């Protein structure tokens, strides 16, 4: 299973954090610090896999954001790259040509989409359309118009 998923910018600012295993605040902060230092120190054309403690770390850079996840020993790293890519595709479809600012200003929506795709560290749904449909339906349920701010029309 995936232990955590982090998104951070090239300056090391955290944009999203999802923890699939309970951890104390101190441990979380340490992991965030270690991940940002390690990943940001990597040179451009090196491989996307790292080793950290007993976990395999898979990271991929999309424009100005680094997507970084921690896997257990038995997990498939190449598939994790595909998982990260799929998440980016989902974000892209929802926001329409997603960029870092979208994720900063609409972070709660990024979390909602992630919660439809991954749960408990495992993949929930492999069909892009199903996920898009459920997000759309959930958004419709939100009563007040204020919540529709800057969300593109479907």
């Amino acid at each position, binding site marked *: 299973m995936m232990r955590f998923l982090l998104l951070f910018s090239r300056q090391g600012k955290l944009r999203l954090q999802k923890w699939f295993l309970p951890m104390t605040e101190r441990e979380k*902060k340490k992991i965030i610090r270690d991940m940002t230092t390690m990943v940001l120190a990597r040179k451009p054309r090196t491989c996307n896999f790292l080793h950290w403690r007993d976990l395999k770390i898979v990271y991929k850079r999309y424009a100005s954001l680094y997507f970084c996840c921690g896997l257990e020993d038995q997990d498939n790293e190449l598939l994790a790259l595909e998982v990260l890519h799929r998440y980016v595709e989902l974000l892209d479809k929802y926001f329409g040509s997603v960029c870092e600012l979208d994720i900063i200003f609409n972070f709660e929506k990024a979390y909602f989409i992630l919660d439809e795709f991954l749960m408990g560290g495992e993949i*929930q749904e492999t069909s892009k359309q199903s996920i898009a449909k459920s997000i759309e339906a959930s958004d419709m349920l939100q009563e007040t118009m204020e919540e529709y701010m800057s969300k593109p029309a479907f």
Partner: protein
Amino acid sequence: MSPSVCLQEMIRVIRGARTQGEERGVIQRECAAIRAQFRQADSGGRSHNLAKLLYVHMLGYPAHFGQMECVRLIASSKYSEKRIGYLGAMMLLDEKQDASLLITNSIKNDLSHSSQHVQSLALCTLACMGSAEMCRDLAPEIERLLKASNSYIKKKAALCAVHIVRKIPELGEMFTPSSFLIVLNSDTLYLHYLSHSVPELVQIMKNLVTSGYSPEHNVAGISDPFLQVRILRLLRILGRNNDAASDAMNDLLAQVATNTDSSKTAGSAVLYETVLTIMDIRSESGLRVLAVNILGRFLLNNDRNIRYISMTSLQKIVQTDHTAVQRHRGTIVDCLKDQDASVKRRALELSLALVSAANIRSMMKELLLFLSTCPPELRSHAASGIFNAAERYAPSQRWHIDTILHVLVTAGGDVRDETVPNLIQLITAASELHCYTVHKLYRALISDIVQQSLVQVACWCIGEYGDLLLKGECEEITPMQVTEDDVLDALETVLQSHMSTPTSRGFALTAIMKLSTRITNNVDRIRSVVSIYGSCIDVELQQRAVEYNALFKKYDHMRYFTMSYCTVILEFGCRSRLSLYFNIHDLLLMHILDNLLLFSYSQ
């Protein structure tokens, strides 16, 4: 700032802050406003306020005062408030907080809500942060939902069940094994229930692999690689230590291995998982060879990620399938020259594991080449690996000594401490090579005295076999005329150089002293050097020099004996037996012998 300002406005203001202090100020003001709002129980902008708080939390600021608000929002009837409330619960609450127990009841109610989206919120939160007590309380609800007809809820309930089972393994029996989804995710629980379902899994997999194009599940031409990998992983668990199950999946694995297109990452991911599965179950040898060949093909792939994982996998199987991996030795050795440091590291580990008596000469050439160009963090690992390999498979003593010398010249600073005494022992044992060794070491010493381990071994050797050096004739190496002055010059350079460590100086001084019994013309020069160092600042060196001085002055008759070949001491093994044999009670002599032993065998 007005408390009803929306989330986006607040984010804009925070990002506009030019210094850390300014940002802190803005956030403190906002948090104060939010706290005031929470106390008021104002029903208007509650979800906004919590969202703002969650943003602030992500920046790293404390947000624990929002926990109770999360509990309140979850219990609200509005979906938008529930949604933010649950998100807040996942971010702010964890099992160690007391507030997490308070949401158990809300979750329970929401699990039976009429809207599936509310149910899914509750399931997701439980799967993310459910503590053991919460799981125990809510397990019956989850079991009920597993049997629901709605597949959307069923899938979420299954993943929630996985979380529960991970938290409380005893509840495993509660969730009936009829649902494939659970087993796809949990690891060892349902083995004996499901071994009969291997054929069904095989069938599903076959359909996936041979089915037509399904656009929503397709990734780069592979139909639903996520599901394929999952099924393969499950087959791996089922086939482990189970011959019948392994047989049933043999054909499928061969089919997937040969038919999957690996030009994109998705296909490679599926192939990789297939290889892992083949290696883990009781597969027949033909299948294993196929798997190793796939890994070998990966090694030639342009994508360095694929090269990296193929080497990681080969490392795992190199002990069990040694001959199969040996076939790809050439490619692995080529990867030593890769640009990427991680790939280099893996290639080094694998190459060291593949060294054998048959390929030692060619492998060592490559490894020594690697040592001269490798990144500094890998040098000491490479050096010790080379030493181990040389020790185990050296085809001849001369080759062994040459190899160690080469390593000392290239990476002498990164070798471990016991290399020096080990090498000395090796040289002593190779008695017919003393002449060759001392000549080689002398040449290395006069060209460069930076590498301390090399300097130490060279000094010891020259001190010990100086007479062979001075004789000048040696069959295996081009002859070189060496005079006594040259040798003493070299040793004195070591003594005086600021690059020499105290240990190296000690070796050099002892070597000079030993030469006093092996040379004829320059004993006076040696005597003067030794007496100069009698007033050296370094205490160790001074002590040695004083003792050697004493040997010259008072115990000259002992000098020849104590400074003669070390092999005498080796043969007799220890100081006490020696004293017995020669009936020596001289304390000073004991002290000198101690020093000799110390130099020759280090700690």
